[in-house]
């Protein structure tokens, strides 16, 4: 499986470490009234879809950047790769 790194071009997936669902970028607000339930969801529940899945990969044996990869879990086809930093900023984190 090749991951088309936005900065480095196509790299073998074995250079990366897999973290999981990219929803992990959106850490809940610890001051919310239902923070406990939100953190239990965040820590332990997953959508786990069969089909398109946005997921976090870490380029451990490369430039050590985090990527958000959109991959089909039925075919392993990768349709988009972005720097997780860009995604997180776009979603309003790390202002």
């Amino acid at each position: 499986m090749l991951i088309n790194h936005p900065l480095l071009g196509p790299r073998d997936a074995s250079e990366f470490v897999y973290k999981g669902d990219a929803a992990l970028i959106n850490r809940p607000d610890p001051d919310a009234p239902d923070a406990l339930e939100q953190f239990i969801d965040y820590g332990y529940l997953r959508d786990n879809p069969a089909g398109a899945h946005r997921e976090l990969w870490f380029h451990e044996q490369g430039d050590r950047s985090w990527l958000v990869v959109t991959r089909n879990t039925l075919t392993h086809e990768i349709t988009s790769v972005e720097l997780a930093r860009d995604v997180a900023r776009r979603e309003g984190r790390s202002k």
Partner: protein
Amino acid sequence: MRYSGFKVIKEALTGHRGWGPAWRDAAPQSSYDYVIIGGGGHGLATAYYLAKEFKQARIAVLEKGWIGGGNVGRNTTIIRSNYLLDGNEPFYEFSLKLWEGLEQDLNYNAMVSQRGILNLIHTDAQRDAFIRRGNAMMLNGADADLLTTAQIVARYPFLNVNDARFPIKGGLAQHRGGTVRHDAVAWGYARAADQRGVDIIQNCEVTGFRIENGTCIGVETSRGFIGAKKVGACVAGSSSRLMSHAGMRLPIESHVLQAFVSEGLKPVLPGVITFGAGHFYCSQSDKGGLVFGGDIDGYNSYAQRGNLPVVEDVCEGGMAIFPMIGRARLLRMWGGIMDMSMDGSPIIDRTHIGGLYFNGGWCYGGFKATPASGFAYAHLLATDKPHPTATAYRFDRFAKGLMIDEKGMGNQPNLH
């Protein structure tokens, strides 16, 4: 029809014309008391024990393809009960005891072979950990035996005990562990359940749950609506897909695990050997093929096929510890989809929806658990109380901090 040695001889002399189908091809009725979703090992075992041990009737098993076509037909056939934690060990020991009586119970030759399993030790710290594990096993009535390097060499002279990175310093053996003919487990349970009146309905995919006022009253299927007083999901690998129809999100990711078999060889490998440090485990099938596997590929997958880096990694592990396999050719490899749970342990529990029960999250340890999983799930379905050996397998253990994390990896499913 009862199978026996006499019956085999009689059929051999009369041209094998007297064998009938092992189970009926049932058509779905409009409603049942119990509907089990998933005709794999666990689902069929659940139906069998519901009928036999808990004297229940009007039971159906729904299977979207053919029975035994999922993970019960895709594993490396190993049985063992060498767990550490209190939430697990009594359950797996219960399972091993059921394996020991399985063939007589089912009147079916499942080729249960207690050829022993050996976990290799490479460091002093690992020896300490395995001594502790062995003690935990014995406290729960299982057998465990700490072997020295000399004892291992005497039994397995082909092992590379002087590997530079992972020299073999001993091993923890469980002599009652071994292998079972995996397909025969599904077929044996199917036949025995069918004889007790269970309807096994193949090519019947569940497409939704009918839920009214918080209670599940049946399932929508590709062959129409089927009503049920109790519905038991039992589809490890596809649990998230199925339960999403009931609006549930699970503490599970689906991952692919590959397994391999070599060409047939003369008997070379007695028992099962696990080389945990090198991510490799191996046994030899009765046909002569070396059956082996390693780690999961490590990313969410429903593809039932894996990628090449793991093939290389598994074969490297094999070469490091059994250099003799280097000239054996790989015959086949395949992938199965695992429910990888957040703590590496399964779930057998009620859901928040009345009449809807769940069994899944088996990670890559589901095969050995088949009899106990079926028994415990049948117990839960019939009595609404968890079986005494399965009380820890609850949904709410994550919220309550009562994880059963054998490897201590935390909520990262691909590390379990």
